[in-house]
Structures are given as C-alpha cells and as structure tokens.
C-alpha cells in the first residue's frame, strides 16, 4: 500500500499518461493504437511542444512570459509576408529569428535590468507585438504566394517521420542537454530557486534571465514558422491557443522526473498528455468543449499531486 502510494506520487503523471493511452486503445484499438497514429500525434503536438520548451525555461527561472502566443502569430505572419514579397524562405526565417531575438532581448532587459514584474511586462509587450502583427498583415490571412518549398517543413516526412516532429525532437534534445548537463542549466535553475543566493554565488543572474527570455522567444518563433508551413497560411491570431497550453504542459511536467522543477522531458510528458487527449477525444467524436474540460481537470489533478509531495517534506 505504501509502495503504491509512493509510486503514485513519484510517477502519478506518467501513470495518467499510460492510463489515457490504455483507455483510448481499448475504445478504438484499430484507429488509436497504431504506429501511424502515434507518429501523427508527435506531429500534432510538435508546435505546442516547441512553445512549451520555451515555457520550461521561463518556469525554471520562476518568471512568466505571456508573449508566446503573440510571437507565434507574429513570426508566422512576418515570414509569410516576406516570402509573398519574393524573399527566399531561408532568408525570411532568418530575418524573423533576428526580430524575435530582439523581442526576447527586450523582454529580458525589461524584466532583468529594470526589474519590472514579468507577468505584466510581458502582457504589455505581447499586446504591443499583437498590434504590430495586425498592422503588418492588415488583419487579413496570408495564403496565396507562399512557396511550396517552404511548405515541406510542416507537411513532409523523412523516412516516415514528419519533419515537424524531427525539429521538435532536435530542440528537445538540445534543451535537455543545455538544462541538465551544462553549467548554464545549473545557473538557470539556481536563479529560479533563490536569486539572491545565486547572485551571491557569483551567478550573473541578469544575463541568465535575458538569455532565457531570448531562448523562449526563439522557440515561439520556430513554432510560428512550423505552424504557417503546416497550415499553408498565416493568420494574425493563429498562435492564440498556445500560450496557456504550453504552460499547462510545462506545469504538468514539473510533477515528473525532476521533482518540483520544470524540466524538458517532464514538459514532453505534459504535451503528450494534452496531445493524446485531444487526439483520442477527436477520434471518439467528443465535442471540443469537453476536451478543454478534461485538460483543465488533469492540470488540477497534477497540481494536487505536486502539493501532496511537498507536504511530505515537512
């Protein structure tokens, strides 16, 4: 009994993931439980996961960044606009990366150097960027004139694996290494744990925070590019849903692997739970609003598990 309790506490979120998979497999074995569908799921969650990687960094330094959705939309519209006006896809992507890097830098400087509260600050910069996006796109959807070579990113596969999934896994591996194996990762977690102690230990906390905001902005940027390529069109509010879902994934992730801390593989489990729920419920023809209700309930459950574990310590 005690062992079961311990297992539940430590791996509760993983069990939840497993439970969902078993449930859907039992209900729709021929459609859900297939290699094809799982590959499909990795593609479906790729954009969410890329944004959520950024959220993981932000949570690791105990800050907030509410500008993800705006960056995703902006990057999409900006890249599409440039390509439509005849600029090569690679150059368009590079230019958008440059701008988003600047935007992340701005967020970082406002929060780290000017010590503004990150929640409100990024809400403001997000609103600002949203306005720019509408101004740039004149509020319309861009779809004609996007070159086919660009659509490969979001729509084609290599050796049966979608390119979007490959990009996602590459970014996961990169951030896993960066956060858990390097001195930069240690610096990041120390800033989140206790900034004063980190500073007194010789960590340049402002630099760390600024870099984290840049990394987060770049991930949202990449997500925006993949999104446009997948849809074949760019909409000025296309990124809307990714903000809360990415934090949901990252929060779910704090309950697995690295206890109480945001971590990449945990975030991946979180994104999988959200993605599989959406996938499975769609297969079952469950109305969309029920999917939101389930997702909300799962996040609350995960937070309760986390709280239980905390009270164990004292």
């Amino acid at each position, binding site marked *: 009994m005690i062992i079961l309790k311990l297992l539940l506490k430590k791996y509760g979120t993983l069990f939840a993931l497993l439970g969902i998979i078993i449930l859907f497999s039992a209900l729709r074995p021929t459609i859900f439980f297939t290699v094809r569908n799982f590959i499909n799921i990795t593609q479906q969650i790729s954009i969410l996961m890329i944004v959520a990687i950024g959220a993981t960094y932000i949570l690791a330094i105990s800050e907030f960044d509410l500008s993800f959705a705006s960056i995703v939309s902006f990057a999409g519209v900006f890249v599409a606009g440039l390509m439509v006006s005849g600029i090569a896809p690679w150059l368009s992507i590079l230019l958008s990366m440059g701008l988003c890097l600047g935007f992340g830098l701005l967020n970082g400087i406002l929060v780290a150097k000017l010590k503004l509260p990150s929640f409100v600050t990024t809400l403001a910069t997000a609103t600002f960027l949203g306005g720019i996006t509408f101004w740039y796109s004149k509020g319309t959807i861009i779809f004609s004139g996007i070159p086919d070579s660009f659509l490969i990113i979001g729509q084609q596969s290599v050796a049966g694996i979608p390119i979007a999934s490959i990009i996602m896994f590459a970014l996961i591996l990169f951030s896993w290494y*960066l956060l858990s*194996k*390097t*001195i930069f990762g240690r610096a990041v977690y120390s800033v989140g744990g*206790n900034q004063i*102690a980190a500073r*007194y230990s010789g960590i340049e906390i402002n630099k760390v925070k600024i870099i984290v905001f840049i990394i987060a902005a770049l991930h949202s940027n990449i997500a925006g590019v993949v999104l446009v390529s997948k849809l074949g069109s760019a909409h000025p509010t296309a990124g809307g849903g990714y903000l809360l879902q990415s934090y949901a994934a990252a929060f779910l992730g704090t309950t697995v692997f690295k206890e*109480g801390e945001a971590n990449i593989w945990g975030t991946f489990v979180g994104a999988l739970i959200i993605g599989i729920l959406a996938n499975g419920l769609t297969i079952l023809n469950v109305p969309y609003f029920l999917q939101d209700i389930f997702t909300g309930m799962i996040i609350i459950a995960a937070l309760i598990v986390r709280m239980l574990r905390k009270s164990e310590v004292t």
Partner: protein
Amino acid sequence: MKGNGKVILEMQGISKSFPGVKALDNVSLTLKEGEIIGIVGENGAGKSTLVKILAGIYRPVQGRIFINDSEVYLNYPWDASKYGLAFVHQQLNMVPFFDVVDNAYLGRWITKQLGVCDKTTMRKRIEEICKSFNFSLDTTMPIKNLSISDQWMVQIIRAFVKNMQILVMDEPTAALSDEEVQLLFETVQKISKQGTAIVYVSHKLNEIFKLCDRIIVLRDGKKVYEGLKEKISRIELIIKIIGEERKESIFPVSEIGKNTITEVENLSIPNKLKEVTFNLREGEILGVYGLQGSGRTEVAEVLFGIRTQYEGSMTLMGKPFKPCNPADAVSAGVALVPEDRMNQGLILRHSILDNLALPNLLQYVAKFGYFKDRKFRSNAINIMKKLKVNYRKIEDSVELLSGGNQQKVVLSKWLVKNFVLLIFDEPTVGVDVGARRYLYYLIHSLAIKGHGIIVISSDIEEMIEINPNRVMVMREGAISGFLQSEQIDRGRILKLCYGG
C-alpha cells in the same frame, strides 16, 4: 519559589524519527512553575525537534506529554496554544507588508462585529508589551521596513500577546544586539517570577548560564546530562555537548606572509562609509567588529561587488580591483559567506550537490558547457567529510538538513575551490559549539595555507575566541581603531566601538 513550584509540564520517553535519523530517543523532562530550563546541544542533537513536538508541529512516535498532571495530545499548533504554550521559533515567520500589530497577532486577530479587526485594542496591547520590555517601536510600520533585529523583537512580542503558562524560545537572540538581549532577559526573568515556566534553547552558553536554572544537554537525540547550572562548569558543559572523544583542538597560530592580498584605500559611501583604509596580507586573519550600521557589512559588500557605487580604490593581489558584480569578485578569487544564510546562501529546495556546485561552475566545465558532475561530486563529498556535515544523500534537498548542517553546506560551497580572499560575515550565528570550534580551526588552517581572511562579527566572545592577527573596530562608517592580537579584549573593543 524557583524549582519548588508544582510541575507544569512533563514529557515522558519522547521519541521521534525521520527517514534515516532518530531525532529524539526516549527523552524525558519536567518543568516546574517559574522555572527556566536551558536546552543545549549541537545542531541535529534534537533540540528543535523537541520544540516542534511541543508546538504540535511534529507528533512523537512514542512518549506521553502531561500538562498540569493531565495527559495531552499536541497534534496541531492550536492545541499547544490551548494549553497555554507560547513559542518563539528559530525562523522569522512574518508577512512582510503587514504592520507590527497585524504580525504580532497573526491569525489570532481580535475582532469586533462582523469580523472587523479591532486594531485599537490590539495596538494598545502591543504598546503595553513594548513598554514592559522598555522597547520602543513604531507599531504602524510594515514589518519589512524594520531591521532584522526589530523584526525579531516583534517575533518575541508575539509570544506575549496571549496569556501563557509555558514559554518556549528556540534561539531567540541570534539576530539581536547586546542591549536587546539584555531587555529580553529582564523581561523573561520578570515573567518567570510571576510563575511562567520557560524552556530556553540556545547555542550561546553565556546566555544559558546567565538565564537558566537547570541545564539539559542533548546529543544525537538522547539526553546526556541534566543538572542545576551551579553544578557544571563551562568547559565541562562543552565536553558534554560535543562528547568526550572530540575535545577541543588548539588553534594553530597564523603567521603573516610577505605578499599583500588586498589593499583598500579611502573607501567612502555617503552616509555609510568614511575613508576606510586597510590592507590584508597573505595568511592574515583580520577581524572586523562593529554594531549594526557601523559599516562592517558595507565593506564586505564593496569587496564582493554587491555595492558598486563608492569612492576610493582597491587592489587584489597587487592589481587594481573593481568588481561590478559578485560574479567578477568570485572569478577574481573573492568568496563571501553571507550573514543571512537561509536567504542569501542557499537554495533550500535544491539538492546539496546543486548548492555546492554554484560558485564552482567555471572550474568544472568541459566542452559544450558540460558540467563535470562526477569529478565535482567526489571533491564535494571530501569537503563535507572534513566539515562533518551530517547528510544522507548528496542528492537530498538542503531543506531536509538541520539548521546547523545547512550552514555547514554554505561554508562547504566556498571551500571546494581555493579562494584568495575569504570574507565571513557573522560566520557562527546559529552554529553549535562543536561546529563553531571546528570553523575557527578551519579559518586558521586556511590562513596557514596563505589565504587572506576577513571575519566580520558583532559577537565579542567570537572575536576573542578566533584570536585574529588584528581586529579592526568600526563606528558610524569609519575605522575607530585597530587592535593587535595581544591587545584584543572585551574592554578595549567596546571602548573603540562606543567611543570615549
């Protein structure tokens, strides 16, 4: 009436274990009306556990508790309060933006109809208590605007808000000035004469001898001594606390080398520091003594790059030294063990290993920023062995360790690498007798290896016990004098400190 009154509290055969440790092993004690007992022991000996059991925070695995001859079960903090137990805990528990009154009455606010707080009545009561303490305090001030020592006074006042028959104090004086300690003791003695029984937990043996009637020594969770304070000498008590097998070692005498580690010239900050000039050579231990606000902490903050707005100049190892932030200072070889270890020294929920690694990241970096985990781990374990840190696994989070062991971890993190200049700001606040002796020994052995050491302290006993090469006494931001090691005594230090 002392010691002859009726028994108020009786604890019988109390035991408590935590994963991997037996925190208390069959401890019994009795407490009579108007009696003051002192509980001493090293960090991790079980003192705080005992207090927390009385407070209803922990539940004992075994044992019974009687109050006024009837058995009680202290399962929750409000149970303890129901039986007239009041506490001054080791940590400050305050809501920063609440004022003094709200904090003193936290969770026990007196209300009028409809749950409206009766501020007037509460304020009057607090002011009465302040008056009986001879302590002046602006009760409308948000607590975060008060100095740490004033916040502690509020923490103590909080215990007095309700009528109590037993007062339990766990290291209440760690952050108080000498005068405030005096005020506190007078008040405690007054209420004990009125019949309140007092349990006083402290590392400061002077206080124990001054205040208590009876002394209880805990070691490794067991009661190893109990007796009237007249029956035992200070040295005997220290041996009881640390155990026969670990008697005191004699400090090696530190010899000053030729090379200068650091030179500080005409350091000034408006309203904080006035033309502070001193130098430190290799192997030298410099004590810095001063009251709060004397500028002692500011000197350390400038050297460590925390304060960057100042006039004057500094050198380190013969080169100009102007750190813009602590990172500069650390990479130049300056270490600071800060005063407020909980907030400035540790990341409580992170592992011991992660905490130890922080100042040493750049020494253990390989290609692609990789942190050499294994290599660091073995070095870290070595240091902790030397410091006798009591821990289970290096992956455990620091918050699982006892207070003293946490402090040893803070020290350990600065000892993995060889720093040129080590600054200790109040190094032994809250550290037990055994660890304190060991720390002094360590300071001396670092000096022998040629490090330059600055020890900042407001504890005169500590200054004398460390026996530094020189003591620099500060007053109102300026140096009021230096004392060579053979001149160091209480009278001279106080004279320089208060002037005249």
